[in-house]
Structures are given as C-alpha cells and as structure tokens.
C-alpha cells in the first residue's frame, strides 16, 4: 500500500500545457431513476457512495425561510439525499482523502519498550458520485505534494480506493474562476468518469480503468445512448451545457500566470500586501474550505496511562502559531505576511516546484471569508500590477495606498 497514487491518464502534464478535458473512453446514459437505484444498490452492498447531499444541522444550514439550502459531501444511502442541483458543498472533497483528524499510529508502553502500531491503510472501495470538477481536479494536484519526498500511505490508499465521477458544473457565481487556473466547469482532470446533465438524466463518460470498472460492475444501471439523431441530440445538449458554463465562468477572471508568478517572485516586500492583511481575521477558513490546502499539524494524545495515539489534524498558514518558534520569534509576524504566504504558496512556490498552480478556482475561500477577502479580486489586482511595469520591489508606484489597491 506504499505505491504512489497515479495521476489519471489524461492528467495535465507538469510542463504547464493545459489539457482541460480528455476524450472519453466510453459514453453511456444514466437516467434519474438509474442514478437513484445505483445509490440504493451501493448502500445495500455496503459500498460507500459519497455525493453532494442536503446539509444537516441546526445552524446556517437550516437557513432563513427562502434562503437556498446548504449542501455537503457525505456518504449517502438514498436518492432523496442527493443535492446534484444544489449549491457548491460547503467543504470540499478533501476531507475524504485528508480527514480533519486521523490517527497515524498508536503507541503502547510495554515492559522496557514502546510498541507502535501503524494506522491501517486497507481502505474499502468507494465511489464519489457528482464531485464538482474543481474538487476532483484538486486530487491529482495534491497527489504531487503527498508523493514528493515521501509517499503518504494514508492519502495514497484513499486515492487508490476511490473512484471519482464528477458532475459537469453550471458555475456557482461570480467567485468561480476555474477557467483562469487551467480548468473549466466540465474539466475531467482527476475524474475517472463524468456526468453531464441532459434530458432525463446524465450523459456519462469514462476516462480511466477505474471509471470503466465501475460502470462495468453496475452495467444494469447504465444504458448505451440511443443511436442516430436521438443520440446526437443528447450529445448536443451536453455540449451546450458545457459551453454555456464555460462562457459564464470565463467572464469572471483572466490571468497571465507567468507574469503573476514573476511579480510574486520579485515583490515579497511590496506595500500591496499591507493592504490585504488588515481585513484578515487570521482564521484560516479559506484553507479549511480549500480543496488544495493540505497543511497538517501532528499531535500526540495519551488515551490513558501507557498508551496513546499520534494524530494529524488540519492546520493553516493563516494562524499566528503556524510559524511561531519556540524562542518566541515569528518569521511571519503579522497577517500581511500570512496572507502573502497563502497567495505565494499557491501561485509561486507550488508552480515553481510542480509547474502548476495550487488552486482550482472553486471560489470557496471568497465565499466563506467572514471579512470579504476575495482571492479572485486579489489575483486580478496582482495581474494588473504585473502589467503596470513596476520594477522589482518598487512597491506600487502609481497606486493609491489603502485597501482600494485591491479593488477591481
């Protein structure tokens, strides 16, 4: 179980050339009834099906009358729970591969020694039905980090055990910008298969062995698309859906990544950063909801006398203590430096190492931020600064001081 998670065969090459969608291996049809039966069948077989579902809870999810209900990814047992047409789930799919907390090993003190037992890596097979393409694409992006200098057994085991079918996205709102980060609303990166809404159900396409194996194992639920004009009509509907979504999201943001990366590299001390930190609470909600943020903390917890566990828990570079040294010195002294870190990791550090960006443009950080920090606005501002021709570290010549430096 120590193998590296393989990127899907159609993954974007690390040389920076975008491949947004792969040619499908198979094209099938899944009716709404077929989907309902499939979900129930998986539940009966004790095979977990994770899907966007209507969120539970007595808080915001209960909502004000008339407010749209929130959704969440969770293991579903019936079609009534499915929220394929709902809003973007509030947390990304990340939690099913890097849970908010997990045991790495348990320890037990024995006579004169300590016995260590590694956490099991035999993850039961499961399928994700209806992942947002921006969540599915995050998986191969994070694979690289999890297999860079150390192959993360737990992440890789969960990746290997999971088949991901994405759902072509109709675009959430003005905070989406997948098309500005090498993706699109129907991107197939990280997906073993995809579903695209058509009359009566979904056009299903497979892109990997895992995707093919899943449809083969549940062949009764999938149908061949009708031959002739009827089939052409369904394919045209799917393409029209994708094209409309592409057009919608493209209007939100455009970026020149080479220029953005270059600007970031040479403007570490730019006064621009001091226009962003004051608003930031330093709460890290942006990284909690982010499909690509993957930093974790390691803690040891005694369970009782003589035995305990080592766990890893989600962490965030936005927290003051993230870089606090034992001496009391903190190299990232304030929120200006911490917010800069988040942007630089995603659009300079990761790209320099892996030739890609650590962001899928899902926009969750902008939606979830309690103080209205807006990543696409910040990126647009950096893109603008990079065009203005200001030299390295000249720091915002021609810009007014204050938060309006980031205003679009």
């Amino acid at each position, binding site marked *: 179980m120590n193998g590296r998670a393989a990127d899907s065969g159609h993954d974007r090459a690390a040389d920076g050339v975008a491949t947004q969608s792969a040619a499908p291996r198979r094209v099938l049809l899944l009716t709404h009834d077929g989907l309902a039966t499939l979900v129930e069948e998986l539940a009966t077989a004790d095979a977990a099906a994770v899907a966007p579902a209507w*969120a*539970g*809870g*007595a*808080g*915001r*999810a209960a909502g*004000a*009358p*008339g*407010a749209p209900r*929130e959704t969440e990814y969770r293991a579903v047992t019936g079609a009534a729970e499915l929220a394929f047409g709902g809003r973007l789930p*509030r*947390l990304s799919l990340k939690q099913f591969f890097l849970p*908010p*907390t997990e045991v790495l090993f348990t320890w037990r003190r024995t006579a004169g020694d300590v016995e260590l037992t590694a956490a099991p890596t035999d993850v039961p097979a499961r399928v994700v039905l209806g992942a947002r393409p921006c969540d599915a694409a995050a998986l191969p992006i994070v694979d690289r980090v999890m297999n860079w200098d150390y192959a993360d057994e737990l992440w890789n085991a969960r990746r290997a055990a999971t088949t991901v079918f994405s759902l072509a996205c109709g675009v959430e709102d*003005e*905070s989406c910008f997948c098309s500005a980060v090498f993706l699109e609303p129907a991107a197939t990166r990280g997906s073993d298969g995809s579903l695209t809404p058509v009359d009566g159900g979904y056009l299903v396409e497979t892109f990997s062995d895992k995707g093919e194996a899943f449809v083969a194992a549940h062949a009764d639920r999938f149908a061949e698309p009708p031959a002739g004009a009827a089939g052409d009509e369904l394919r045209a509907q799917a393409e029209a859906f994708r094209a409309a979504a592409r057009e919608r999201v493209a209007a939100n943001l455009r970026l020149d990544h080479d220029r953005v990366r270059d600007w970031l590299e040479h403007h570490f001390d730019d006064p621009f950063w*001091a*226009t962003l*930190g*004051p*608003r*930031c*609470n*330093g*709460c*890290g*909600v942006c990284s*909690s*909801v982010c499909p690509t943020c993957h930093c974790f*903390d390691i*803690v040891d*917890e005694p369970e009782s006398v003589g035995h305990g566990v080592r*766990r890893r*828990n*989600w962490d*965030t570079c936005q*927290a003051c*203590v993230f870089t606090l040294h034992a001496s009391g010195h903190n190299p990232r*002294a*304030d*929120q*200006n430096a911490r917010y800069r870190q988040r942007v630089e990791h995603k659009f300079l550090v990761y790209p320099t190492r892996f030739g890609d960006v650590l962001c899928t443009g899902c926009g969750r950080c*902008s*939606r*979830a931020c*309690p*103080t*209205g*920090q*807006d990543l696409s*606005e910040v990126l647009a501002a950096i893109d603008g600064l990079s065009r203005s021709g200001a030299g390295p570290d000249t720091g915002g010549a021609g810009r*007014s*001081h*204050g*938060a*309006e430096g980031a*205003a*679009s």
Partner: protein
Amino acid sequence: MSELQDTARRLLDEGAAQVVIGWEAGRRGARPAFVTDAAGCDRLIFDARCVHDLATFLNPRRSQVADLGRAAVVVKGCDAKAVAGLLREAQLARDQVVLIGVRCGGVAAGPEGPEPPALTADTVAARCHGCDVREPASVDVLVGEPQPEPPVAATLDERVAALDALSPAERLAFWTTELSRCTQCYACRQACPLCYCERCVVEKTEPQWVETSPHARGNFAWHLTRAQHLAGRCVGCGECERACPVGIPLGLINRKLQQVVYELYGYTVSDDPAVPAPIGAYAVDDTQDFIR
C-alpha cells in the same frame, strides 16, 4: 451616507485619525474597509449588510491594523458593546480610538448581496432581537437618521427554550451532532472581538489543556472552554456563528450564557465600560450556592 463619509474625511484631514475602519461594498456584499486617505472615504457605507463587528479590529494583537496608525472606528450598537468590553478589560484606552457611532435599526443575517435587503422577520439577524441600542452611547460622533426597532425574528430565546425543554440525553445528542462537524479551525475565536488573548488556552502545550484534535472529546473541550471564557463577556454580535465554515449554531450557546449570567448576577452586557462585568466585580451578596 454622505454624513458618514464627511465625518471620516474630516477626521483624516484634521489628523484625529490615520485610518477609518468602516464598511465598503465588495463584490460579494459589504465588508470591512480600512481607509487611510480622504478620497477613499467615498467608499464608506452603512446599511443592513454591515454585520461585521468592527471592534474585532481593535484587538491590540492585530499589529497589521495598529500599523495603519490611530484608528477611527464606525460602530453600531453591538460593536459599541464590544468596544466597551475591550475598555472594561483594559485592552484599549478610550483616547486611543475615535468612535463614530451609527444609528442602527438591525442588520441582515449576512453581508451578501449587491443591495441591502429590506429587513423583515425572515431577513433580520437573529441576534438583533432584543437589542436595546439604536444609538450607541459614549461615541465621539453620532451619524445617521433615527432608526426603528428591528423586526422580530424567530428568536434565539425560543430556540434556547426548545433546547432547555429536552432531556439531558437529548440535548447531548443535539450538541454531539452539531459539534461533530467542528474541525477546530478556531474561526469562531478569531472572529470574536473579546477573544484577544496573546496565547489562547488551546495553544498552550505544557500542559496541553485542551485536545486540539477535532474528535468528540476535543470538540466538546474546545467549545465548553470557549463558552466558559465568554460568560458575562460575550456581547452577542454573532460573528463566531457567521464565521463558522460548518454552520455550528454557536449563537445558541452564547444566548444561553447570557441568560445564565443574568439569572445569577442580574447582569446584561452594557455599552458603558464603567459598568463592571461579573467576572471583574465582587459583591457580598453574590450567589454562592454553586460552591458545594
């Protein structure tokens, strides 16, 4: 609006403040703004979307705000109560800050939207029910038209009463479910104007008082600790619940605390810093029957 903008411009021009902390319209709705020049004052707004508690930015640990210089802060009633809390607890000196009070008739549940929503029982923030501050006191300047009482929403009190009516086992089940979503990100703490500790108890590791893992044990320990530390201090601004990325109804805990503190000490959170909070006061007739 122009009264607010003119006031901000005057304070910056006169040098009474180097930064005005108020609200502006962002792409997703209202959000905090930090205006350092007269021209920027045109961006300042105040409407029902201005839900953020701006007292949070006066936390002396937020050096990136302090670096902008002496602040003038726009405060509605709940912000003013939080400022009073900071003054009462000696986190701030009154002459360090200029307070621009705005008359407030309630805010919406969230800051979203291109326009402020009409306030109705459905759109008003739950926390506005029972709010007694239309005009914040102890401010340096007061702006805006007189405001009506906020519409009455399904109140937090009713929801707390419904929880109180449950058996302890049912109540435990309710909170177990709600807290199971917590990832211990501490967004609730970061959004709280009164959570200003230099080093939070969850960040103390010798010994580790609170388990930081988001399992049931750690989550209960965190939320109970947070509640205890805010009893008699929480101003009910609701920012913790709004910041929570997984929608935990923290407002129910906060309102219950306010009720208990009122029952035991007759205290409601005041916007007058001279009124001592129970944690900072002693009276001979204080109830002691909890000591057994």
